[in-house]
């Protein structure tokens, strides 16, 4: 166990000096009983990348995202995160998940805890931070998203947009190296989408590495450093946003864009 840890530390060090991608996905496959949700996906995500993943429903984009932190167990393939193969069953995935923040479509705040408790639970229980430290950091981040007055509220007292901003802050409190967004605005009323996108835009401007699964094409065009189009469990096209939206190469992407734009 200890050995594995030191090996991982060495791998991480080697990764840090090598300038390799933050996340390297190699030929990732995921099958549910009859269905191949992911059929060989390979992609590199560099530090500071803001990668948007779009595609029709059932294309495997959410499965892809959820495989990145192994909420979904990949059937085949490799994911190197900071130089460590996190698909290796011997890897302690919990340690690496601390460095991969995740934001869900349904927010998934903890309803039995105040907002402040939601934000400090992870840092205190997992990272050994003191209450003062954790709360100070939480307050700082709450202020950034304009919700410092809701620290003592409970999730049920918040609007959808506020819940999602809190969910983003909860992930940020762990000081992650990458943020994974799984359709963060899909469950929101239209008038609340903007406030969540504003927070994400801020993060992107701060060079946070982000992988975003979304249907917000205009937002992708504006914020993404790279856009990936998935269909039938495969990456069909991948390009910078201008190229992606103005000059789509494949017919599938052209058809898709014609429908959604």
């Amino acid at each position, binding site marked *: 166990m200890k050995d594995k840890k030191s090996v991982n530390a060495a791998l991480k060090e080697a990764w840090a000096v090598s300038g390799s991608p933050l996340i390297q996905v190699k030929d990732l496959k995921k099958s549910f009983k009859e269905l191949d949700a992911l059929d060989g996906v390979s992609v590199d995500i560099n530090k500071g990348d803001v990668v948007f993943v779009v595609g029709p429903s059932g294309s495997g984009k959410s499965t892809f995202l959820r495989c990145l*932190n192994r*909420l979904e167990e990949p059937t085949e393939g490799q994911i190197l995160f900071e130089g460590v193969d996190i698909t290796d069953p011997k890897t302690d995935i*919990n*340690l*690496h*998940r*601390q460095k*991969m*923040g*995740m934001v*869900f479509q*349904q927010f*998934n*705040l*903890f*309803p*039995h805890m105040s907002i402040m408790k939601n934000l400090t*639970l*992870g840092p205190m*229980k*997992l990272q050994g931070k003191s209450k003062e430290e954790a709360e100070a950091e939480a307050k700082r981040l709450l202020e950034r998203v304009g919700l410092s007055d809701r620290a003592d509220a*409970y999730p*049920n*007292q918040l609007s959808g947009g506020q819940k999602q901003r809190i969910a983003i802050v*909860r*992930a940020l409190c*762990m000081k992650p190296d990458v943020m994974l967004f799984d359709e963060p605005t899909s469950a929101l009323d239209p008038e609340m989408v903007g406030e969540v996108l504003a927070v994400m835009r801020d993060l992107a401007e701060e060079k946070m590495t982000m992988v975003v699964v979304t249907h917000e094409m205009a937002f992708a065009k504006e914020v993404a450093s790279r856009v990936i189009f998935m269909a039938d469990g495969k990456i069909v096209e991948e390009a910078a946003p201008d190229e992606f939206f103005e000059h789509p190469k494949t017919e599938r992407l052209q058809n898709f864009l014609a429908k959604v734009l």
Partner: protein
Amino acid sequence: MNFITDFTNDFYLNFIKEDRWKYIVDGLGVTLEVTLFAVLIGIALGFIVAIIRSTHDKTGKMKFLNWLCNIYLTVIRGTPVLVQLLIIYFVIFGSVRVDKVLVAVIAFGINSGAYVAEIVRGGIMSIDAGQFEAGRSLGFNYTQTMIHIILPQALKNVLPALGNEFIVLLKETSVAGYIALEDLTKGADIIRSQTFSPMMPLLAVAAIYLAFVMMLSWLIKVLERRLRNSER
């Protein structure tokens, strides 16, 4: 006037004469003792079984333990508690001298555990899968996620059902007289057999059960309200 004289005489005969009230008070003590410790065993057993079963449901691990738990639940819920009590007293502890209170605590505790287990498991399974994923995505392992995120919510949801189970348990202990344990019901029965005047001791005992059940119901309601308030 006749009625009042009859009542007074009856009361004297059943409760005052030869200190017969002691059967009721001592019996109540035994009933409460058995219920309290059986509840504790029931909670402990129930939670362990519920966690094993829901872990198996969620992850497919713990196959053998889950199999054992299933046998326990099937047997205990499929046979009358009185039969279980008699088996434990006359068969399992048949050849050794053992405190009857202890036997009753074990029997009712094991019995209650099976019902608590299914209540708690229902509570765990009713929590949205997203809560589990949110915990895991922060880096909590399975056990930590259970302790900090799932169980507190599950417990709150099942509190009324758990309270009800404990009320049932309190009343169920009244069959302990079958192993000659002198609990509240048995106390009334002893008085009845001495005085041949069944109405008063039995009604008194019924009133005492009722009072305790109402008190428990009230306590559970208060607790429930307090827990719910913390979410608003």
